[in-house]
């Protein structure tokens, strides 16, 4: 069986590991909160969205489209399209939940977004990691995002653009630090290159962020060709 330091530690470790990226999350929360005031969203609507929708990109889009009369179908479909990537992302979380009960899966999967997802999978490369690590990261992000959006809601649009400080690059920077640890050898070359090329091409043609889904699918499908993973099967 896998050994975890302890459940309490797992939660704390996840929470602490997510603090660095949370600076970027707060800064975007500020912008999102300010924008929500401009577009006539109430504080309670904003808070409900923070807790239930949980996903920065989807929420940004919803706030941007928030206008009376509410385009129910338009907003819902656009936000779900943005969030479709979570399907594939959560498929990849299988090793994290391998010893979990159904109730844990149902509870902990909700607070999944890119930062804690990437940190959990990266940690899993080097040590046993429980879903509580993911959840701890999710709670940290929820605090950061809510703190940011609520502050932005009251401070308004006097805030400057996070891009000036390069904070929009924080998630990308974090992922670049993680990727080398996921390299297994030459069998990774084809899937990784195909993912890179396809995501670049698909970004030109597909709406929203569907290119992430398309690129990852194309890249990972390459592993199904047996001659490529010969050494891994052995």
């Amino acid at each position: 069986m896998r050994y975890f330091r302890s459940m309490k530690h797992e939660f704390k470790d996840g929470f602490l590991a997510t603090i660095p990226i949370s600076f970027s999350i707060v800064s975007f929360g500020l912008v999102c909160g300010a924008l929500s005031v401009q577009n006539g969203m109430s504080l309670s609507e904003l808070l409900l969205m923070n807790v239930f929708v949980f996903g920065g990109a989807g929420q940004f889009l919803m706030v941007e489209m928030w206008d009376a009369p509410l385009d129910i179908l338009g907003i819902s479909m656009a936000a779900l399209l943005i969030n479709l990537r979570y399907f594939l992302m959560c498929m990849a979380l299988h090793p994290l939940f391998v010893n979990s009960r159904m109730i844990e899966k149902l509870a902990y999967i909700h607070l999944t977004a890119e930062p804690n997802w990437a940190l959990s999978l990266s940690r899993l490369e080097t040590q046993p990691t429980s879903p509580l690590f993911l959840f701890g990261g999710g709670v940290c992000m929820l605090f950061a995002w809510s703190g940011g959006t609520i502050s932005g809601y009251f401070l308004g649009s006097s805030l400057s653009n996070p891009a000036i400080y390069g904070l929009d690059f924080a998630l990308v920077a974090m992922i670049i630090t993680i990727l080398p640890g996921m390299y297994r050898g030459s069998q990774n070359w084809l899937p990784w290159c195909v993912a890179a090329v396809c995501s670049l091409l698909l970004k030109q043609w597909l709406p929203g962020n569907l290119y992430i889904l398309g690129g990852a699918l194309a890249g990972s499908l390459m592993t199904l060709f047996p001659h490529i993973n010969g050494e891994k099967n052995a």
Partner: protein
Amino acid sequence: MHNWDVVLVLGIVTVGTYAFKISGLLLSDRLVNSGKVRLFLDSLPATLLISLVVPAIIEEGVKGLLAAILIVWCMYATKNALVAMTVGIVCIAVSRQLIG
């Protein structure tokens, strides 16, 4: 705008997003016993991350490439992700000020 409209939008997006997440996880539990699917699933974290970062780096142009190289180098030299991440962000911020 009508209160029920708000509840409906938030409800649809909440249920839909949660359904994506939980169905992805439960589906992979079912599929993982097949050897080929396991290879596919094992490769997903990296290909998802690559599909997320490569277009973002290329869109940023020379600044993005420079930052990416610096981050990898820092990671190699210091083995500290936080330092590497900070260097990357500062590199982007400074180069945006200088190059525009």
